């Protein structure tokens, strides 16, 4: 990696390091940080294709993610219409053949996880906010950061191209189990499956390049990259890594995939929980309850998440005794996660809760994710998973986790930081209309799926007409109810898009700190210029000092010099941690 820009400057601490080394070129000596957006405005190409500003890259990730979400949502609309009204011609799509149904569910899953949740939460919020919250002027490798978005964009193009190749897009589910995914005589998508794999691999490379992507992700994705190389060779060269006839083993892929796949859930959950915590403290005007506990729980969750993967494979033909072990670790992971949610609820105690749009989303995250969390217990317990595995119960369960992660936390973050990103406020009334419409319809969409799953509905079934016990009018009416609720959910997103676009250009002007929040990003102007801060901020206290006793203001920004909290008579006045996040 030769990321060392010849014209780069660096902060004083590092300058010292380099000063010890004589060969280090003198023109890299310390220069002051001056936001340069005020001095020159870069042209379009420079700004959007080559900008190394973490905020530009972050917004690009976020907007690309949102655009991909529309495609993923359209896929969901089409296959849900087919599930509710089998054989009918779906408006804007046409009749859904079995192969169409499969590639739609595959693409919906792939897009929503890899091209929506990851770019919005990691690429978008991570990129945009972390340097701001830490009081830095940019990410540590700005040019690698830029490259990562370019690779990510390329991966999106490859994925979308796979819709238009002969044979159609890959339809072997987002888990892509071989031999189905390895052999085009089985998948019948000779080009689609290879393009799918290439796109996913590129996407991983993109996220390996963003340095903010958690260690968790890096540790888990490596084996899957190796697995993907082997799968690619199986597809293209004709090796037999996953072909039992030639000594290979299809279950190997399942291990590699889920060794990545389950930590991935937490890779996405942890940033979402971070967003929610930030929003909650601001609108509850409340210090985060037991901050350390959250940190320890998050670390514990991350570590345990490496040891739970095989709970996706209880009935996959692995040694049944292994299932007992993974059942145990899976239930153990519920302990730190439950702890985090208890802490979030406890944070509300004694607060002064303002139900603004971002706060509504943050609270909804807690309320909805709890449902997703407890239904996971049914699936983590090996005994009951025998029945629930691959039913709609699983579908409903993970939508109760991933919808809060990707969308509810996403909306919380977007509505909260919108004034920072665009210097304008979003409309509150329409924000609330969007919130209630989405949340109510979302629940009506997925609660019926818990019921159909409990009654034995399997996933990815194109038409239930073949199954006498599932093709009953009662079951069908539940499916139709879920589909109609989905349509309402989708329709309400138009409110959001309209509000987003309108507010971007015509919303009320926001000042630097419209929510009266503590953290450092609110010190920078809205929107912050390239380089973020006029002078690098100095941090005086922890980020969550709200309603400190004997202080006139109910918030106390981190960068504001001032007395010790203990001196102000706070109960249990421990010295706050002297750092940012």
């Amino acid at each position, binding site marked *: *990696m*030769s990321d060392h820009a010849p014209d780069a400057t660096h902060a004083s601490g*590092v300058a010292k390091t380099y000063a010890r080394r004589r*060969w280090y070129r003198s023109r890299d000596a310390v220069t002051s940080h001056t936001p*340069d957006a005020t001095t020159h405005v870069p042209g379009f190409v420079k700004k959007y294709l080559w900008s190394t500003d973490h905020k530009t890259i972050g917004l690009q990730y976020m907007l690309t993610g949102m655009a991909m979400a529309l495609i993923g949502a359209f896929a969901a609309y089409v296959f849900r219409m087919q599930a509710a009204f089998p054989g009918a011609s779906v408006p804007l799509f046409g009749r859904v053949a079995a192969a169409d149904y499969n590639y739609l569910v595959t693409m919906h899953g792939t897009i929503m996880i890899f091209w929506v949740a990851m770019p919005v939460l990691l690429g978008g919020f991570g990129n945009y906010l972390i340097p701001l919250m830490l009081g*830095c002027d940019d990410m540590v490798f700005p040019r690698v950061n830029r490259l990562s978005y370019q690779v990510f964009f390329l991966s999106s193009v490859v994925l979308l191209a796979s819709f238009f190749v002969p044979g159609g897009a890959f339809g072997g589910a987002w888990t892509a189990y071989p031999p189905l995914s390895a052999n085009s005589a089985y998948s019948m998508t000779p080009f689609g499956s290879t393009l799918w794999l290439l796109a996913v691999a590129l996407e991983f490379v993109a996220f390996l390049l963003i340095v903010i992507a958690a260690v968790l992700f890096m540790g888990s994705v490596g084996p899957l990259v190796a697995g993907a190389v082997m799968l690619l060779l199986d597809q293209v060269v004709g090796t037999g890594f996953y072909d039992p006839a030639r000594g290979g083993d299809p279950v*190997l892929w399942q291990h590699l995939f889920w060794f990545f796949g389950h930590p991935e859930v937490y890779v996405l959950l942890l940033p979402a929980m971070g967003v929610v915590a930030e929003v909650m403290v601001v609108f509850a005007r409340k210090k985060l309850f037991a901050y350390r506990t959250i940190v320890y729980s998050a670390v514990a969750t991350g570590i345990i998440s490496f040891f739970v993967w095989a709970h996706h494979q209880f009935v996959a033909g692995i040694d049944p005794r292994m299932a007992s072990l993974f059942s145990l670790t899976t239930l153990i992971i519920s302990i730190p996660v439950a702890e985090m949610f208890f802490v979030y609820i406890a944070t509300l105690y004694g607060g002064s809760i303002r139900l603004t749009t971002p706060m509504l989303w943050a609270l909804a995250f807690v309320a909805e994710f709890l449902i997703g969390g407890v239904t996971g217990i049914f699936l983590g317990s090996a005994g009951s998973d025998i029945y629930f595995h691959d039913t709609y119960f699983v579908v409903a369960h993970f939508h109760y986790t991933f919808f809060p992660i990707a969308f509810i936390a996403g909306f919380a973050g977007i509505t909260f930081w919108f004034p920072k990103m665009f210097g304008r406020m979003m409309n509150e009334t329409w924000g609330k209309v969007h919130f209630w419409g989405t949340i109510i319809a979302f629940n009506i969409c997925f609660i019926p799926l818990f019921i159909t799953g409990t009654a034995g509905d399997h996933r990815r079934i194109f038409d239930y007409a073949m199954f006498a016990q599932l093709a009953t009018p009662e079951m069908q009416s539940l499916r139709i109810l879920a589909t109609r609720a989905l349509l309402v959910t989708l329709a309400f997103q138009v409110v959001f898009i309209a509000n987003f676009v309108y507010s971007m250009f015509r919303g009320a002007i926001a000042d630097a700190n419209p929510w009266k929040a503590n953290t450092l990003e609110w010190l920078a102007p809205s929107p912050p210029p390239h380089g973020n801060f006029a002078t690098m901020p100095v941090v005086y206290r922890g980020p969550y000092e709200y309603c400190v006793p004997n202080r006139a203001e109910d918030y106390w920004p981190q960068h504001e010099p001032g007395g010790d909290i203990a001196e102000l008579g706070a109960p249990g006045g421990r010295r706050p941690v002297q750092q940012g996040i």
Partner: protein
Amino acid sequence: MTTTIAATRSVTEIPTGRLGVWWVLVSEIVIFGGLIGAYVMHRIGHPEWAGQAIHTNIWAGGFNTFVLLTSSLSAVLAHQAAERGDGKRAARLLRLTAAGGAVFLTVKAFEWTAEITSGFTIGSNLFWSFYYTAAGLHALHVLAGMVILLFVAATAAKNLELHRVENIGIYWHFVDIVWIFLFPLLYIAK
């Protein structure tokens, strides 16, 4: 690119360039780790692969191990020269390292040609699939390393960017270490 926003900053006091190299290496370790792990699991399950492994050329592999280790030594010497600020000498040693890589790849090319003409191709058996995949992925890393070595040598010869000498050295040692794992696993284990 004329940005003046900091590209080097680190609370750990490690120069960001080196930090970046380590970041790449950790990602590489888990990728090779996954591949080698999968191979070892299969190898344990298939003792009969020993019958395939005897067809590998231990002498060529051993010679290549020697070449790579030697080239790592010249990478270390190049680092020393760069520490002293002797860019010319560092560049020479880096080119020597790259030459070691070239020898490695040449030997590998002859070795593979011999094996493929004897009928051991990537598709003939799962052992050979692993053999060509793991060694091939490693060879790609050698090739990429050589390109970067020559690039770094070109700037170092002008006494510029000498800190890069250390960074590419770290990468080259990693490539070396991966081979030290692959050689016994693929060639020696019978």
